[in-house]
């Protein structure tokens, strides 16, 4: 009999029951909650007279709507304010653990969970947000759920699920200097497409993945959803364990030792069967830049905007033309000739301390280009902000003419005041370049933090390897 994949192990350990057709109840160990997808779920509980099944599994923080500038005035937008206040009231009513605005632990839920040790290997982790795949970096089974499911997990601690298929994406060998986790995952999406992982749980493996820090692994798993997979994951190793040691919600004492012993089993067996295996040569991955309105529309920085005339598939060519029109780009333009108006360094993909360091390292005393109107640097959590300030990174950014902000989702989806104006072009470290994602009519190019910082200095995309 073939061995088990990491996903098989995680799945098997959480099945409460299954029907004959494969519909299972899956037990949930950690439930992360934010203000946007939870109000209707709490409302549902109240209407049905239900209580949360296990309060201790919930961690809540507001992130999508919170202002990232001066917070002393509260939230100006009344609709957003109501949503955050609704979360405040719901966590109070139901007695849940909460990192509200003003708490140093507040931040983007996918940055906060791991930082607090709230995400542990072997857990099932859910959140009403598709980028919950981030937490798979810890050898956990983590995926986004809808609001009905948020209510379902609150009320029953379980999720109705069918098992996905197994996919291994192996990034073999080592990446060159200047190539980061973000470039790896953009290259993967470029390779398999935004629907390539649909129906699969993806395990990311290979030397290049194992060489990544936890921050880097989170960046990769974060964008599993952009590759179509609800869950992405990485096997547990020393890097995972070292990251977790001493975190507030990680186990302590004897339980820590017991946990670590069991966590080392969280990898795919050598003889495990995958339904699909994709291999990438890490040495060939270059810094990547998206040119269109889907994350799969991506090329290396030394490449050109592709030409729909060269595309054989008619449906694809139509999609490319629409994307070029929206993006205001001509086919065959070298990527490095594209100027940027705004730069955004932040989001659950790239707002951890390592991302802040990578961006700051590129600047080296230089200032943003005159044509760049605004550069926002938005740390992922209050603790990331604190750490960055302790290292003096805030000064580096401010001296370069960048804005150093309070933690939240910010311009990743422009639900708060941080947004692009129609036609503005942004180099962004976030994960989605859909039409209007960063503000109506805004044009998003997804890049790594180092590439974003370099574009801010140069005023256009540049190859950070030569910068």
């Amino acid at each position, binding site marked *: 009999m073939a061995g088990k994949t990491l996903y098989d192990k995680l799945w098997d350990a959480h099945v*409460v029951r299954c029907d004959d*057709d494969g519909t299972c109840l899956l037990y949930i160990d950690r439930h992360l909650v934010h203000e946007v*997808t939870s109000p209707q779920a709490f409302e549902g509980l109240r209407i049905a007279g*239900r209580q949360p099944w296990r309060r201790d599994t919930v961690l809540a923080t507001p992130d999508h709507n919170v202002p990232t500038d001066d917070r002393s005035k509260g939230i100006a937008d009344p609709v957003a304010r109501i949503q955050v206040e609704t979360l405040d009231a719901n966590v109070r009513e139901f007695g849940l653990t909460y990192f509200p605005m003003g708490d140093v632990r507040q931040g983007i839920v996918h940055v906060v969970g791991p930082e607090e040790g709230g995400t542990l290997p*072997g857990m099932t982790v859910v959140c009403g*947000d*598709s980028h919950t795949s981030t937490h798979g970096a810890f050898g956990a089974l983590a995926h986004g759920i*809808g609001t009905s499911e948020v209510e379902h997990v609150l009320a029953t601690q379980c999720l109705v699920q069918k098992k996905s298929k197994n996919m291994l994406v192996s990034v073999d060998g080592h990446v060159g200097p200047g190539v980061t986790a973000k470039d790896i995952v953009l290259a993967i999406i470029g390779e398999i497409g935004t629907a390539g992982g649909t129906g699969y749980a993806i395990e990311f493996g290979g030397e290049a993945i194992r060489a990544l820090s936890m921050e880097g692994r989170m960046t990769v798993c974060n964008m599993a959803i952009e590759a*179509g997979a609800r869950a992405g994951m990485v096997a547990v190793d020393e890097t995972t364990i070292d990251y977790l040691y001493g975190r507030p919600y990680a186990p302590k004492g004897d339980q820590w030792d017991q946990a670590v012993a069991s966590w080392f089993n969280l990898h795919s067996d050598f003889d495990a069967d995958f339904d699909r295996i994709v291999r990438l040569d890490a040495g060939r991955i270059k810094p990547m830049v998206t040119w269109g309105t889907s994350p799969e529309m991506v090329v290396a920085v030394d490449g050109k905007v592709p030409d729909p005339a060269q595309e054989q598939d008619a449906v694809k060519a139509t999609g490319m033309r629409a994307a070029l029109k929206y993006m205001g780009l001509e086919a065959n333009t070298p990527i490095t000739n594209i100027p940027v108006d705004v730069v955004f360094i932040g989001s659950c993909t790239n707002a951890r301390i390592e991302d802040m360091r990578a961006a700051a390292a590129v600047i080296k005393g230089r200032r943003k280009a005159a044509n760049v109107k605004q550069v926002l640097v938005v740390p992922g959590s209050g603790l990331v902000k604190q750490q960055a300030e302790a290292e003096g990174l805030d000064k580096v950014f401010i001296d370069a003419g960048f804005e150093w902000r309070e933690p939240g989702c910010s311009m990743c989806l422009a639900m708060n005041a941080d947004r692009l104006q129609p036609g503005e072009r942004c180099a962004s470290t976030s994960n989605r370049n859909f039409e209007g994602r960063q503000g109506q009519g805004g044009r998003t190019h997804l890049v790594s933090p180092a590439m974003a910082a370099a574009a801010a200095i140069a005023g256009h995309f540049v190859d950070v390897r030569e910068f």
Partner: protein
Amino acid sequence: MEKLNKVTGIVAPMDRPNVDTDAIIPKQFLKSIKRSGFGPNLFDEWRYLDHGEPGMDNSGRPLNPDFVLNQPRYQGAKILLARDNFGCGSSREHAPWALEDYGFRVIIAPSFADIFFNNCFKNGLLPIKLDGAIVDRLFKETAATEGYQLTVDLAAQTITTPGGEVIPFEVDAFRKHCLLNGLDDIGLTLQHVDEIKAYETRRRQEAPWLF
């Protein structure tokens, strides 16, 4: 949840792949704390010429005449015909809420994004995956015939065209049962309380740090 069995209705064609949830319901409408009333803002950025914000009176806003749902022939549509990877992007359940509130009950496409697909069933919407060639044909027929209608019979798992052609489709048995009976997932799961508790007891032994 509203029951769904037989739906006969006008088909509206959404002829582009990768329609994402940001397009289905732009994020400014996610600030609502309610789960109804999203229909007027379905496809807001494509549907109106101005920028929509929550709380606006939508009845007076300038419509984009080029947008498919604004064409007179597709008014009252209950069935949405779509292309590959429909509903990609975020997990927002506001997307199925908006589609349902607008009046859609069925979405037909060659493929759907996973989370969106699941969210549909939980909100009384039936997503049907059909072979790309069949979908292509339905697009052609819809374009060719004004007032083109399909009949979707969930119990029988068939789609009937005006020409009398019967197209079978697959649907998960559990999801079908819930839709046909308008059943809520939580009530169903709570029938298994003993099993959940037994799991917890077992798990507490194996992994006490999780409790």
